[in-house]
């Protein structure tokens, strides 16, 4: 059954995710040194930045899945793309809220409008918030999937362009974590950050698989119910006159 394929490895992945998150939290609070400038408040960095990177990566991955949907004409890739965007939006909410908390503690303001990194992330987030209304405003499932894929590809291409544009703007207010010169993180902080990033990536993949499995099972169940109900409607016709509805005949022939 295909739903089993989506769920394959989910238990092992869930256990690995829980272990990775526990390890990341332990490193954050018991291993990584306090930041000389920001002190304890810098601990927010280990949840905020990995969430932002994974959310943006999820948006781009959704664009790649949408390309695969259009190329292969396989609706399962559209479903994968949809779930990736859905999850990335949820992570995006987390990024905005944790970022606002960090900004309040560090800068004294919940939000700073002249900081390009913040505003560009908000623009990307709001862009993707239009994905679901757009998708569900189209009733025909084929057109819905096609239009949603086109959106996911265009918006997915916008994410790295936006990121590069912000880098070129050379703002200094928002700290740079990863750069060509290796960033400015000491060894313990870098290790903690990488573990946190790995844990966040694992969490994303696990939740993505979980939602895909749930959606696929719901779809299979719906098809099964339709077949059963159809079968119940066709039964009197079979026994009464010997006539068999085409769908029922095809089913019995295939079985």
């Amino acid at each position, binding site marked *: 059954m295909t739903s089993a394929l989506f769920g394959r490895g989910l238990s092992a992945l869930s256990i690995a995710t829980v272990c990775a998150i526990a390890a990341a939290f332990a490193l954050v609070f018991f291993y990584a040194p306090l930041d000389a*400038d920001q002190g*304890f408040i810098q601990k*927010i960095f280990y*949840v905020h930045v990995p*969430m932002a990177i994974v959310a943006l990566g999820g948006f781009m991955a959704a664009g790649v899945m949408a390309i695969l949907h259009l190329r292969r004409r396989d609706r399962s890739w559209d479903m994968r793309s949809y779930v990736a965007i859905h999850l990335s939006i949820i*992570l995006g909410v987390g990024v905005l*809220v944790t970022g606002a*908390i960090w900004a309040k*503690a560090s800068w004294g303001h919940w939000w700073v409008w002249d900081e390009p990194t913040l505003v560009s992330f908000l623009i990307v987030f709001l862009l993707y918030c239009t994905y679901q209304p757009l998708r569900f405003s189209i009733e025909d499932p084929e057109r819905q999937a096609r239009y949603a894929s086109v959106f996911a590809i265009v918006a997915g291409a916008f994410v790295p362009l936006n990121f590069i544009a912000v880098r070129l703007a050379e703002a200094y207010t928002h700290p740079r974590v990863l750069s060509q010169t290796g960033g400015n993180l000491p060894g313990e902080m870098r290790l903690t950050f990488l573990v946190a990033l790995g844990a966040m990536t694992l969490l994303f993949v696990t939740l993505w698989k979980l939602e895909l499995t749930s959606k696929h*099972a719901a779809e299979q169940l719906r098809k099964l119910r339709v077949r059963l109900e159809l079968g119940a409607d066709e039964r009197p016709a079979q026994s009464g006159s010997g006539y068999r509805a085409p769908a029922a005949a095809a089913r019995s022939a295939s079985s």
Partner: protein
Amino acid sequence: MPALPLEEAGKYVAGAYLVFVVLVVVYVAIIGAKVARLERELKTLGDLMEKRAP
């Protein structure tokens, strides 16, 4: 701005991590509720099939 004292910074850090945990827990709870609904529907279909069996 100078670094906040630990007691005050602790509230912000706890708040940020709590946001993350709440997001994940709520998401998993919603998916769990959906799976529970699927199980109920599956049971209903199973009962329906038993009734229809000769």
